[in-house]
């Protein structure tokens, strides 16, 4: 499984006063099993780009290939693409509509025409994957759940289609710290269990650094930077010029290494930072 985006261009309301070029010559590739973090300022074209990957938007020019198959020339059935490429929108809990959690999660698989038994197993499996218990909440109304639970039900609704690519647009937006952590470990679990391509957008640089194999930086409808978290976050100045930043740990470590040159570190996460600091600091043995 792979995704290839070639020279994508998209214009909102062409020929009208509000005409804006949202994407301009965007090209990249994603390979099997990779997790890609997309960062960018509001209005840099992230969401527009995501909607091209499952055929919700048709590009003005350029092509998208999923698994070597061109999805932009109209030769592939849209339902087929959407089964392969699962897209979780921002605030996905606002799309819940069924009477029960189980029925809502079953909506996607039912649209692909699966048998009732298969749907049932999928619903159970995907609810388990997002950390919810089918027997406990399967029959309750999705509107009775907490914010974090609702979001996980909505994500389960996309996972239940067993996509080969999972795209998440700001999956942690507006959640409290504990729900935030739950969503992150859920993404890690999905990656581990399903081994699929995951593409996610986030404004939280620490999350992006911790989860992604590769980061794509969008700016003004173009790809401004692309590389591993280490590569991308070493360009602090360019990032802040785009209205972005580096993970807080990196910020702290920059200050520490400036003040204490004996510490060498380009850590992005707290664990990496701790290891780097331990290398140079000898903690004297404490006497009891």
């Amino acid at each position: 499984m792979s995704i290839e985006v070639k020279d994508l261009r998209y214009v909102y309301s062409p020929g009208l006063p509000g005409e804006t070029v949202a994407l301009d010559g965007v090209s990249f590739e994603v390979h099997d099993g990779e997790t890609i973090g997309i960062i960018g300022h509001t209005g840099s074209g992230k969401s527009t780009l995501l909607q091209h990957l499952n055929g919700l938007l048709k590009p003005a020019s350029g092509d998208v290939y999923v698994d070597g198959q061109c999805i932009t020339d109209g030769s592939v059935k849209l339902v087929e693409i959407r089964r392969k490429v699962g897209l979780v929108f921002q605030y996905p809990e606002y799309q819940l509509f069924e009477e029960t959690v189980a029925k809502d999660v079953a909506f996607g698989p039912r649209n692909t025409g699966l048998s009732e038994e298969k749907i049932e197993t999928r619903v159970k499996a995907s609810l388990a994957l997002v950390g919810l218990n089918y027997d406990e909440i399967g029959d309750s109304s999705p509107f009775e759940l907490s914010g974090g639970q609702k979001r996980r039900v909505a994500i389960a609704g996309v996972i239940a289609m067993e996509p080969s690519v999972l795209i998440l647009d700001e999956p942690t937006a507006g959640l409290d710290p504990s729900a935030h952590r739950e969503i992150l470990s859920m993404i890690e679990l999905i990656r581990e269990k399903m081994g699929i391509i995951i593409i996610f957008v986030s404004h939280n640089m620490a999350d992006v650094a911790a989860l992604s194999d590769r980061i794509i930086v969008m700016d003004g409808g173009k790809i401004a930077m692309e590389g591993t978290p280490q590569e991308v976050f070493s360009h602090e100045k360019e990032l802040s010029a785009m209205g972005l930043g580096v993970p807080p740990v990196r910020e702290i470590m920059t200050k520490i290494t400036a003040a204490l040159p004996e510490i060498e570190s380009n850590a992005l996460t707290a664990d990496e930072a701790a290891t780097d600091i331990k290398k140079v600091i000898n903690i004297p043995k404490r006497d009891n």
Partner: protein
Amino acid sequence: MIRDITLGQYYPGESPIHRLDARTKIIATILYIIELFVVNNFWGFLIAAAALFAVIAVSRVPVKFIFRGLTAVFIIIAFTFIINLFMVDGRVLWHWRFLTITYEGVSRAFFMAVRLVLLIIGSSMMTLTTKPIELTDGLEKLFKPFSLIGLPSHEIALMMTIALRFIPTLMEETDKIIKAQEARGADFESGNLFQRAKSLIPILIPLFISSFRIAQDLALAMEARCYHGGSGRTRMNEIHFAKGDAVAAVLMVLFLAVIIASRYIPVLYK
């Protein structure tokens, strides 16, 4: 698709039409609609259409933009045209089984269609050139005299403001929900009428829930800013009639006279 509807939209601009007082434009629109029903022959429609295109030219709203909004109501116009074409009795032009087209039917159908098109373009010219806020302020002022007989003019104006303000918001919300459900493989375009109606449920329920949420947030925000109804409320920008409005008033009276006169222009053939 849903974004293509321009009915009720505002087209930002700096033309003399944009600068007119909202009350002038409301009165002019109502008058124009009445005049469209006063017109009874080809010449009248020609004059009415010419006047409308003159206004469009002065307003500098692109004609393409106006007609884009019209495509949605084209079905209604086509329907009226066909009904009128077949349902009017008179001198027979064409006959096949139960279908009859008469000379009177053709002219009636044609006039009705032209009247509807002019009516819709005419009234959308008002919303295209007037900010929703100005429009409702204008309506509130126009309704003010009727508050003596118990008409809640401020409340009506507020309701209209809210309705107009939230049309784009709800359209955006609808667009988002449609996309989210399409991403889950929902299909809104195939199946029979019954299946299609059923496929709307995944859109309508989230949309209802969103509108309740929006309504609640709005009510809270208004209360937080001490909104307490219309009495004793003052405005930051009072609206005033200006020189342009006087010019518009004179033109309106002249136009009314021309339209009434047009009823007496002899028709070329009968």
